[in-house]
């Protein structure tokens, strides 16, 4: 007879112990190579955080030097940063909780085991809080480190910050989990749930666009407000009085300023709200989780024809095979088959639709922001068009992290099908490259061409930016596939584990470094172009222009070829996660 009278604490300890043991075994079983690799990643991460810290330090030092309103500005910025952090954790938890709460592989075992449902939920909710917040929390940490440094706050400030971040992040994640739990409870039918999921994403996208279109930046520009008193009133007003980010920023401001009653009130409000919200979530889970989990077990019915008609895809495949000089199929046919398979799998996954909708909103906001830039002279507008390559490159790198980098890992446990087929690794990588390249080229062209049009860039800058962004897109797609092949993770439960892996981090760091190097390499010809525009005779020194082109070619070649070749080699030698 199993021990049915195990206490709640016993169950909690048991569930936590298994996580601890998994972590311990993972660390202890690392080879020397893995120790070296992980240490290198940790160092890279540390340098990135250090970079962020010095960036924040400079900004905060500058703001603290502004007379009269310096302090107000800094706390306003702090409140806004925390609001952004809060929103990002809510969004992240919304996406992640669907997998962690309902589709984790260990749930099948846990649900069968004599563990009360609420404890299963508790276990999975801890995972959700961690996975949805650790990266965002890590990114905000240097900001507070810099804040403490600027004002010479003591260790107490950092301790308070770290302690209060826990209820803050829990509260944000609880909101996301609560939505997912309710959605799964109310819509156990998978099809309805999909529709609601897409509509929710659409609402978030529209809300984001509306928020941006309301031009909140006008409020932080003093010239947009008629009176100084209005501006001061704005700075002192809560950023979002009912949002936990405001409570946290007030608690921190209270502690830093020695206003302990404000600190205790706000800290109690935040902690109490987090405890109440989490308690309510656990209570709800007792009532809703079983039905939601049961609904999640149902597959999505497709009702598609099982016949094999001569579809357009067949005709196109055949055409591609002929172009590939391989009328009987062969590798060209296999690559075409992979392409169609990827297209089907991509568009049938509702999570991708929601992300496409959000990307659409991002493009809208991006172009609107460009349109509303307060630029006066044509020269300045053209210069911004050139610098826009950096911003567009950043957007493309981020999208690459979401769509291109995971493309090989997304073969998942079905990887044996292509690995066992007569298909070279190079062909597989090429197919993933082409699959990512096509939409990214359209997107990058829209971002740059429309921005150039909106700002009225001159002909030279227009062509230079357009050609550069095409080249950048090409290289970033290659880098994404290459790094994805160097760090494949076929045995993960959700795509976020691929993105937030060490490989994703390395890809992002390299992609950003590449974009920065591209902009730097083009700085010479752009400088000469502007000198010519400003009337300087013989502005062009063709040696520097040639050097710039050569440098650009080398940067792109290295950024494309090195990860590609390494990725091909790693994937050929791949023997399991």
């Amino acid at each position, binding site marked *: 007879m199993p021990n049915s009278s195990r206490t709640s604490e016993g169950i909690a300890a048991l569930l936590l112990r298994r996580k601890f043991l998994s972590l311990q075994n993972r660390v202890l079983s690392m080879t020397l190579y893995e120790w070296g690799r992980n240490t290198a990643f940790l160092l890279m991460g540390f340098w990135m955080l250090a970079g962020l810290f010095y960036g924040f330090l400079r900004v905060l030092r500058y703001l603290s030097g502004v007379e009269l309103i310096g302090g107000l500005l800094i706390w306003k910025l702090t409140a806004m940063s925390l609001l952004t952090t809060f929103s990002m954790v809510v969004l992240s938890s919304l996406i992640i909780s669907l997998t962690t709460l309902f589709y984790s592989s260990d749930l099948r075992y846990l649900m069968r085991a004599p563990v009360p449902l609420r404890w299963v939920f508790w276990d999975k909710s801890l995972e959700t809080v961690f996975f949805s917040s650790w990266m965002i929390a890590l990114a905000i940490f240097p900001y507070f480190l810099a804040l403490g440094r600027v004002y010479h706050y003591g260790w107490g400030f950092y301790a308070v910050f770290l302690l209060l971040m826990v209820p803050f992040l829990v509260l944000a994640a609880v909101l996301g989990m609560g939505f997912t739990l309710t959605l799964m409870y109310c819509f156990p039918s998978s099809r309805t749930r999909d529709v609601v999921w897409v509509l929710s994403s659409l609402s978030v996208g529209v809300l984001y666009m509306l928020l941006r279109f309301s031009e909140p930046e006008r409020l932080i520009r003093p010239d947009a407000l008629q009176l100084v008193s209005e501006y001061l009133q704005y700075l002192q007003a809560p950023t979002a009085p009912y949002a936990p980010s405001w409570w946290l920023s007030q608690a921190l401001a209270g502690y830093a300023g020695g206003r302990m009653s404000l600190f205790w009130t706000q800290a109690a409000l935040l902690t109490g709200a987090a405890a109440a919200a989490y308690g309510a979530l656990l209570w709800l889970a007792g009532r809703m989780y079983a039905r939601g989990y049961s609904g999640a077990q149902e597959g*999505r019915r*497709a009702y*598609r024809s099982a016949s094999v*008609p001569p579809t357009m895809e067949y005709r196109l*495949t055949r055409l591609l095979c002929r172009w590939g000089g391989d009328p009987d*199929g062969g590798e060209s046919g296999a690559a075409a088959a992979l392409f169609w398979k990827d297209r089907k799998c991509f568009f049938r996954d509702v999570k991708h639709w929601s992300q496409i909708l959000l990307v659409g909103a991002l493009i809208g906001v991006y172009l609107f922001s460009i349109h509303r830039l307060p630029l006066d002279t044509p020269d300045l507008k053209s210069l911004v068009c050139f610098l826009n390559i950096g911003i567009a490159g950043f957007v493309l790198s981020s999208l690459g992290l979401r769509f291109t980098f995971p493309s090989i890992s997304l073969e998942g*446990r079905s990887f044996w099908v292509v690995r066992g087929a007569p298909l070279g690794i190079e062909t597989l990588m090429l197919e993933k490259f082409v699959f990512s390249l096509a939409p990214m080229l359209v997107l990058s062209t829209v971002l740059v061409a429309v921005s150039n049009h909106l700002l009225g860039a001159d002909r030279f800058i227009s062509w230079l930016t357009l050609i550069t962004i095409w080249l950048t897109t090409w290289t970033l797609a290659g880098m994404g596939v290459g790094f994805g092949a160097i760090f494949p993770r076929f045995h993960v439960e959700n795509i976020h584990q691929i993105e937030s892996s060490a490989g994703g981090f390395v890809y992002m760091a390299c992609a950003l470094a590449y974009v920065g190097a591209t902009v730097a390499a083009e700085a010479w010809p752009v400088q000469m172009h502007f000198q010519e525009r400003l009337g300087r005779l013989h502005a062009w020194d063709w040696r520097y222009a040639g050097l710039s082109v050569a440098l650009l070619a080398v940067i792109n070649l290295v950024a494309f070829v090195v990860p590609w070749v390494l990725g091909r080699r790693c994937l050929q030698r791949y*023997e399991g996660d």
Partner: protein
Amino acid sequence: MIEILGLSKRFGDLTAVSELNLTVRPGEIYGFLGPNGAGKTTTVKLLTGLIQPTSGTARICGFDIQRQTLEAKRRIGLVPDEPFVYPKLTGAEFLRFVGDLYGVPHENQRRRIPELLEMFELGRWGGELLDTYSHGMRQKLVIAAILLHEPKALMLDEPLVGLDPKSARMAKDIFKKIASRGCAIFMCTHVLEIAERICDRVGIMIEGRLIASGTIDELRRSHGSGAGDVHLEDLFLRMTGSLEYAELLKNL
């Protein structure tokens, strides 16, 4: 024809497969037996090019799996130990995908795919997404997929796990029929009754080493039992030292 020449595979300190030498002739079904962790699945992965050997090589129909990988793979059919398939494809689409990967002419696919789906009683499920399929249905689909491209060498890793009795019987008959057409079949299994019934020869592997290989009668003779009076199960337990379990049972 499958030829294995001095094949070894090490994972760090662990030798999963050690100096394996074996030939499976066309038309022959070779049963590969052994306790859990003996190295059977690793051998299948080596033979299909899913992982690379530490030393030695394997030839499929004369093509070296390391050097002439694509030519060799074109002739191989694989049923892995776990039938993972793309959850967002339908059954019919999965077969089309496999058909295209192996260059099966489209006219053949149009004719064969509905036939295969019907044969494995998946006809009415052919248009459903694979995430609605049970383990057994996915296993049947994977077996159907290898029939689509008519391989010359078949690697089966526990191919009958999860199949209902009717499907299991059909699968066995299918394997025999494929072998009769000249296909070499290498089959890992724990079900000794199946090995006894359909395999021409069997090999027993323990801790990465092939300790015995031959027809079941040859194994009986070499281990001091008269022909026909000892089942393969007893022979297997005697050779792998698993009879000690009787002592363990006393503690239950």
